[in-house]
């Protein structure tokens, strides 16, 4: 949990509307856990005011400027341009100053090493699954089911393959991989491999569908959620989701930023938390 000023190392469009940014991040190789996120301050002005949360895609090292120095640590984030903050982010260049608060939140639990794992990613939801995959492939067979609306939404799949992950791509319009929803692929895989743990991140309708499928089959599921966040550290109570014990008389709210963003599916109230991750519909400013 650190808070520092740093610089952008690179920032590139990797698919229409999707950007990948490398940020100098000393200490992150020791600190960052799969599924954690950072609060990213786009620029030191009042507009946009709040920091933006982004999942950590991966932590890497690059050669130092001179031989005697330790290699430099960086993180990569991958983001979709949806509103005022990401609009500014896409124009950042190598060397531009930014601020990072993190790594934050509770990440994934790697689960039983003897069990096979299925990762389900929807579009930008793929991001937090990469570090998880790096971890899981050390001990278990890992399959990635990656879904998107069109092929533009299918990102970084080859990098998962290089880790040894078996990947299955589906798009709603059939422009890449199988035509259809990623949840259809999930059902087929679960028919074949019923004893797995599932890890999912993506748009809320996808996550809800995955939850139904897994609950029906009594398959263990961890989900990574998005919520509107102001502080990222548990202070503002803006980012809550309803817990499994939630009722109108006896409400149970969990902070997505500190008790999540990764939750075991059975920690949550699936009837009520549709409000999670509504986002701001792009344009709340």
């Amino acid at each position, binding site marked *: 949990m650190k808070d520092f000023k740093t610089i952008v190392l690179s920032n590139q469009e990797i698919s229409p509307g999707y950007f990948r940014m490398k940020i100098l991040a000393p200490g992150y190789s020791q600190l960052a856990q799969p599924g954690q996120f950072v609060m990213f301050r786009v620029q030191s002005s009042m507009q946009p005011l709040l920091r933006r949360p982004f999942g950590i895609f991966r932590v890497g090292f690059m050669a130092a400027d001179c031989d005697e120095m330790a290699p430099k640590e960086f993180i990569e984030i991958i983001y979709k341009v949806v509103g005022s903050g990401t609009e500014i982010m896409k124009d950042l260049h190598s060397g531009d100053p930014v601020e990072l608060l993190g790594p934050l939140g509770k990440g994934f639990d790697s689960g039983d090493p003897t069990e096979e794992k299925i990762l389900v990613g929807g579009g930008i939801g793929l991001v937090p699954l990469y570090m998880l995959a790096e971890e899981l492939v050390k001990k278990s067979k890992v399959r990635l089911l990656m879904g998107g609306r069109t092929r533009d939404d299918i990102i970084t799949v080859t990098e998962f393959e290089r880790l040894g992950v078996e990947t299955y791509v589906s798009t709603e319009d059939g422009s890449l991989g199988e035509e259809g929803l990623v949840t259809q692929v999930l059902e087929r895989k679960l028919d074949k491999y019923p004893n797995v743990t599932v890890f999912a991140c993506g748009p809320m309708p996808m996550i809800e569908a995955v939850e139904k499928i897994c609950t029906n089959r009594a398959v263990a599921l961890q989900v990574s959620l998005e919520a509107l966040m102001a502080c990222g550290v548990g202070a503002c109570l803006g980012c809550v989701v309803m817990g499994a014990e939630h009722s109108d008389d006896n409400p149970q709210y969990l902070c997505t930023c500190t008790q999540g963003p990764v939750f075991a599916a059975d920690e949550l109230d699936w009837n009520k938390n549709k409000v999670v991750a509504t986002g701001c519909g792009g344009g709340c*400013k």
Partner: protein
Amino acid sequence: MSKHVEKILRPKLAVEIAGIKLKNPIMPASGTFGYGEEYAPYLDLNQLGAVVTKGMSLNPKAGNNTPRICETVSGMLNAIGLQNVGVDAFIEKKMVFLQQYDTPVIVNFFGNTQEEYGEVAARLDDVPGVAALEMNISCPNVKHGGIVFGTDPGAASAVISLVRKKTTKPLIVKLTPNVTDIQVTARAAEESGADALSLINTLTGMAVDVKTRKPRLANTIGGLSGPAIRPIAVRMVHQVVQAVDIPVIGIGGITRAMDALEFLIVGAKAVQVGTANFVDPKVMATIIADLETFCCEEGISDINDLIGSLEL
């Protein structure tokens, strides 16, 4: 035209409010700093003038449905709904952490009824380490009970008088800006026994998602905070300072030392930093350092000389 200024090496930043000695006039605003522990990894709480905790009620409070927050132009709306662990759990679990520090703790609290206000104040009265109580009569987020205490001078007087009897601690009354004449509420609070006033709480506001045609907050209406509201806050503090004799704490849109100085110059004895903590967890440390630099450069040996130095 450069006037000659004697440079000061170590200006005095300490101020006193209702008998509480503060190392400097900077403290967090309630609800934006959790129970202190959330920001302790980023900021040495011993540096602060005081710590002000999240608003406490008699019973634990769940808060509102989500979405609870929304960014606006240079500000944010919140309708957290005063979610909190309840005063007993606070005393048991949260105060212990804060008692480690050599910094006065100001506990913000509220109630849904006069009696609840009184009861929370009573329970906090003998808690060690609680330097003062800040009474929130102004939160616009709670639907409960209809009209807000702080918008009705009569209701405000009644509840403040009651609380006054239940506590021996210094009592800070936090005013709502959503009124026609803030001087009226300020005077009512002073007459009812407040030892100090703090203002402003959030202004009620609303934002709409034009695609879904729904309010951006589940609660429809929320409280506006952040730099956008600062001019309104400075104006109200200026007016209140002129209306009462008790000390005033300025709040609203402070993000840097220059902003804090506006409030001090119009006459606030101290200030609270709210939304800016979310943007930069170290912001209060920066403000304290920059205040010191400002005093050095302007030749101010004691920050108290600056307080209320507005030239009209």
